[in-house]
């Protein structure tokens, strides 16, 4: 099995174990001022991000998982 798949399998097992207990948000909505700041976005400039992904993909064998899956701070 490829090592990346082993890591994913472990993550799935851990998430199944922890999913049985209720999750309380440990960062309240009023505590997310810093997370809502523009400098806390993984992808501030989508055009620039996509271009650099393209620059690297054309010159490297590696590809995928370059990011941009969402911010997730729930600030708005």
């Amino acid at each position, binding site marked *: 099995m*490829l*090592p*990346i*798949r082993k*890591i*994913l399998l472990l*993550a799935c097992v851990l998430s199944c174990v922890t999913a049985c207990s209720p*999750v309380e*948000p*440990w*960062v309240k*909505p009023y*505590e*997310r*001022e*810093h*997370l809502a*700041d*523009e*400098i*806390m*976005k*993984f*992808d501030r*400039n*989508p*055009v*620039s*991000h*996509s*271009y*650099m*992904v*393209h*620059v*690297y*993909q*054309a*010159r*490297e*064998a*590696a*590809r*995928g*998982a*370059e*990011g*941009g*899956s*969402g*911010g*997730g*701070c*729930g600030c*708005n």
Partner: protein
Amino acid sequence: MLKAEVVAAVAVTSLHYSRLAGFCLLFFGFTTVAGVLPDDRADAMYHSYDGGGVEITGPSILVLKNVRQDLAVSGNYYVDSISSASIDVVTQASPYKEERTEYTLGADYMHNNSIMSLSYTDSEESDYEASTASFGISMDMFANMTTVSMGYSRGWDVVGKVNDPAFSEDVDRQSYLLGLTQVITRDMLMEANFEAITDEGFLNNPYRSVRYLDPDSALGYSYEPEVYPNTRTSNALALRSLYYLPYRASTLAEYRIFDDTWGIRAHNVKLAYIHPLSSGWLFEGRYRYYTQNAADFYSDLFPRRDSQNFLARDKELSTFSSNTLGFSVSYDFVQNGWRGIDRGSINFVYDHIWFNYDDFRDLRDTSAPVGQEPLYKFSAGVAQLFVSIWF
């Protein structure tokens, strides 16, 4: 140089650009924060790449507009104007010019805490066509502490040959994406992304050759066409974190591991520091390191003709590493609204990349014994100038 060879050089480098293009721009469909549609914005960019004898310039225009409270549409127009005298081209053919044009249309639909995204990309150049359709969904969970995203893409490519109208080969591509973004503390976010990509079809370059030892040749070696397997599956897992410093600045850390069924394993790390100033200026400095080992069927010099089933001498499949140093400067020229524009910024982004190859030799040096030529290395400057407007 024969005319056929001149033409043949056209796709020695450009094939790789178009092949990957379809999957590159899918990210517009996935950049939404679940539960919130992206703001209306327009970006106009001019990009420039210059390195290793290759110059690539062109525009990229992106417009994103919320047409309803729950629906946003976007369009992107992108051009690569390529002028290439790369190491492959100067040792095997003649310099060429080429242009690739790409269009992407996308839509994001929001329902409760979920956003569904659809996009379609079409990329065309003289000897390569690529179409990609993608679907993604992202959901906010656990009091908006967690965002889970999933995506699926399907691509259909047609590989051509400029000097052979009868040549036409297909490539099918599929991509599966799983993402998780997690609030860790009031100052820290983490993101994990996994992507599996499968390719099936004609995966090598119809023009590129490998070299093998040939005592009958004046050079001591000859060329034969490269041969790749017709399937490839790869996995990539990336972790990123953003940390808000005690003053108003942030740091980004990133690590990605990659492997595939061709025997390649790669790692890259990236560190960035982002520092805004109250006057509307924003600075970013960053460093990136990348390393990979060669594909199982790669060799700089094969011992004889047809020495194995699969043959590659593409430097992107060799053992190499690269270092990137970069910076960005951004200035908000509209900060408090002006004539229907909420905000406007002008941005300059520059990255310098140094590539060092461990088993790809520079054949321009004909004085060295065969197989002992100096190892190839080059550096490239990558610049972007763009204006972003939110309205």
